[in-house]
């Protein structure tokens, strides 16, 4: 049975970080908001208390908290000459499947991007005017600056109770923080956690090498904290069941504990759960959108009209929903024209896997973000003159692996994987293994893009998204450089043996262990409708009452996890909607 719901002031598609932050802002401003979420409502006490959450097989391996490929996957190929095939099994794409979205199972690395990340085209013009960029590389500004976003980063950090140590406050460098970060108005709301033994070794090693180690900003909350919405958050317990898990302690920042408790109190907020949005509806003149059509859990089709539509699903689903709704002009890789699906980018990873001899790393004392980093080789924090590439990586000692099933193959090269020899080696390695992660920037390329798959469909008969992606020349040069820096650090740590890896040395594959879940771009923001889907307010160029929120807006990825930035961008967009759009609907570019 088809039905139409009462019209809302705003409908929000997907209630993760972006959706819940937008809902909080709009309902507080008095708007009547309806959010639509594909999965069910979940709470700490019912769905992931310690007695249920501390289960590596269920969540770490069988990944029960994620959206399974059986519900929806995407197809993948390295280049457009290949036939894309569906990712059938669990892989690097890690979408949420309940209220809170990926903000519930994330590893809680809560970064700001660097000043340069937002304006790399300008930076290249000003600093590297003679640099020859890799052929086909897409480098363009976001249309927003770090300084414009700073108050919104600050607000997000307070709502989420982020732990960390400031590196620069009001232009003044602070001891113990990241001296390369953009200037902040405030210290972090909660202090950094106690470093792991491995963090300590890395900290001492890199400091001696003249680098600048600091604790990374994390949604593993550093102490009891009452957030600006009046919600009490708790200190992290280093439980070791973090990324891929819901937190049983109210101590990992999530929409479920940081934002939604406020929404449950507001009578101008309604949440439709277990409803899948199928398309955004367009007005007859196609200059605005009128609402969204969804499939509910009884198999009925509902229509939710609204004056404002905010799409805040996962990056991949944001792009797919625009395609399915036929809003915007699809990118054509042969002509380079069209914007939807263009500028898909990713995260370029390098690693050092180290094996010590007589340590007690006690890896079970762990969080998804228990990490000490150097930013000396991230973004544009170092001079790229003569290097032939853009970007870099945050290089970090990450103590996020403590549960045993993910560590059975963490053995020095040449060790057998079974039998008594394996048992002995594994018992030793469990306490002696350590990891350095180089989380690298990514710039898109003309040949990497998202589109609809012509063959494969989801259970509702709608086309799957198709990803065409491989590493480009810039990625290869950048990560080779980063791997060299990781190797230099490995040599100084006292490890007995190590191996270093630069992921762009092989073709990209969603099935490669230790690769990133950070799929980025495809519906990017900018100042020019010829090269961006959204304007600088994440407002669609072709439909002024449609806003698209998430990492789909990033024309390039920083050497950081994306969540902090998409949250701040959401608050920036919310402010523009409340202060300007509601009073005078139309393009905000005026």
């Amino acid at each position: 049975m088809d039905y139409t719901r009462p019209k809302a002031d705003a409908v929000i598609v997907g209630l993760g970080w972006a959706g819940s932050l937008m809902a909080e802002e709009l309902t507080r401003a008095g708007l009547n908001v309806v959010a639509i979420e594909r999965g069910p409502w979940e709470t700490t006490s019912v769905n992931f208390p310690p007695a249920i959450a501390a289960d590596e097989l269920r969540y770490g391996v069988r990944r029960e908290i994620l959206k399974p490929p059986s519900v929806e996957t995407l197809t993948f190929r390295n280049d457009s000459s290949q036939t894309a095939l569906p990712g059938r099994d669990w892989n690097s794409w890690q979408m949420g499947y309940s209220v809170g979205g990926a903000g519930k199972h994330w590893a809680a690395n809560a970064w700001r991007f660097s000043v340069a990340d937002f304006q790399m085209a300008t930076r290249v013009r000003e600093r590297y005017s003679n640099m020859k960029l890799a052929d086909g590389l897409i480098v363009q500004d976001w249309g927003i600056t770090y300084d414009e976003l700073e108050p919104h980063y600050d607000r997000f950090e307070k709502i989420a109770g982020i732990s960390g140590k400031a590196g620069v406050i009001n232009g003044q460098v602070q001891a113990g923080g990241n001296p390369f970060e953009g200037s902040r108005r405030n210290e972090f709301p909660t202090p950094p956690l106690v470093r792991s033994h491995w963090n300590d070794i890395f900290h001492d090693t890199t400091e001696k090498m003249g680098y600048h180690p600091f604790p990374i900003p994390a949604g593993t909350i550093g102490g009891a904290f009452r957030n600006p919405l009046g919600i009490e958050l708790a200190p992290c317990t280093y439980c070791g069941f973090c990324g891929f898990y819901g937190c049983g302690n109210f101590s990992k920042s999530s929409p479920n504990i940081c934002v939604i408790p406020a929404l449950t109190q507001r009578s101008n907020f309604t949440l439709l759960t277990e409803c899948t949005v199928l398309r955004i509806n367009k007005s007859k003149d196609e200059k605005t959108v009128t609402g969204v059509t969804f499939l509910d859990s009884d198999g009925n089709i509902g229509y939710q009209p609204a004056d404002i539509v905010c799409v805040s699903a996962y990056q991949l689903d944001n792009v797919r929903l625009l395609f399915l709704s036929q809003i915007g002009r699809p990118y054509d890789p042969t002509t380079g024209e069209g914007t939807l699906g263009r500028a898909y980018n990713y995260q370029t990873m390098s690693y050092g896997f180290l094996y010590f001899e007589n340590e007690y790393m006690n890896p079970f004392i762990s969080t998804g973000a228990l990490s000490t980093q150097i930013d000396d080789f991230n973004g544009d924090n170092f001079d790229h003159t003569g290097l032939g590439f853009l970007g870099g990586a945050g290089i970090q000692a990450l103590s996020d692996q403590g549960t045993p099933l993910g560590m059975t193959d963490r053995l020095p090269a040449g060790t057998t994987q079974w039998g008594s020899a394996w048992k002995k080696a594994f018992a030793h390695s469990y306490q002696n293994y350590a990891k350095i992660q180089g989380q690298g920037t990514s710039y898109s390329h003309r040949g990497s893009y998202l589109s609809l798959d012509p063959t494969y469909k989801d259970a509702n008969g709608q086309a799957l998204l198709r990803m065409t992606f491989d590493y480009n020349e810039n990625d290869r040069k950048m990560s080779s450089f980063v791997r060299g820096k990781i190797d230099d650090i490995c040599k100084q740590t006292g490890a007995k043996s190590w191996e270093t890896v630069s992921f762009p040395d092989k073709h990209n594959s969603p099935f490669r262990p230790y690769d990133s879940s950070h799929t980025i771009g495809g519906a990017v923001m900018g100042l020019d409708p010829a090269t961006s889907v959204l304007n600088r307010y994440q407002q669609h160029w072709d439909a002024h009452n449609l806003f698209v929120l998430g990492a789909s807006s990033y024309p390039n990825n920083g050497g950081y996890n994306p969540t902090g930035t998409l949250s701040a961008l959401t608050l920036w967009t919310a402010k523009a909607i409340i202060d300007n759009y509601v009073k005078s609907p139309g393009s905000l570019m005026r």
Partner: protein
Amino acid sequence: MRRRVVLKAGLVLMSTATAAAIMRPVGAAARVLRGGAGKWIARETPPPVPVDPSKRIFFTPQEENLVKAIFDQLIPADDLSVSASDAGCVVFIDHQLAGSYGKASSRFKGGPFQEGTPEQGDQSKLTPADIYKIGLAEMNDHCRKMSGKAFEELPAPQQVEYLEAMEAGKFTYKTIKSSELFTQFLTNVQEGFLSDPVYGGNRNMVGWRMIGFPGARYDYRDVAELKGQRLEIEPVSISDRI
């Protein structure tokens, strides 16, 4: 007059949020959550049902013997622990294969099926349950043809040699690649040895004790400052029934 009242009432309902529940089909209203209208009730996440080690629900007795022989070479009894089968790993995989894991319920099963590049991942139609049923039979046939004996009848050194050749992909089975079958066994025996005992393996938390993993302790604030030293924390399971 009567008709007008109904119409008027209908219009009032239409303009309020409660109308949504009324207009929605039966049963769906519970999944609409309204702010300011009391506690939101979450859908239950059931805890795992502890595996009953006395029950075999997937393997035939012959299959079980073969799996036991394979697993006990992959994780043999020695001074570090009991064997895989004594740790419950065969019970573990028997129950896993009968459940959603065996059926690959999370996998995307839409067609068409075709071979892709290595980067595109497994495109096979076979579920883990299929891989065991077909793979065990093909391995058994192959081993008998090659050596004249069932794998479980071979002396230990020959079992090890056989598995090494499987791992290296040196055998050709009819349907399944020998190296892939080996990887399937190795993955599952390690899962049984190191996952929570509630699933039937890791009996007495033997796998966790071998490496010093404290299991579901969930709170290390007391010891986070005690760096680089042996902590000797007694492990706990999410279930106290095994």
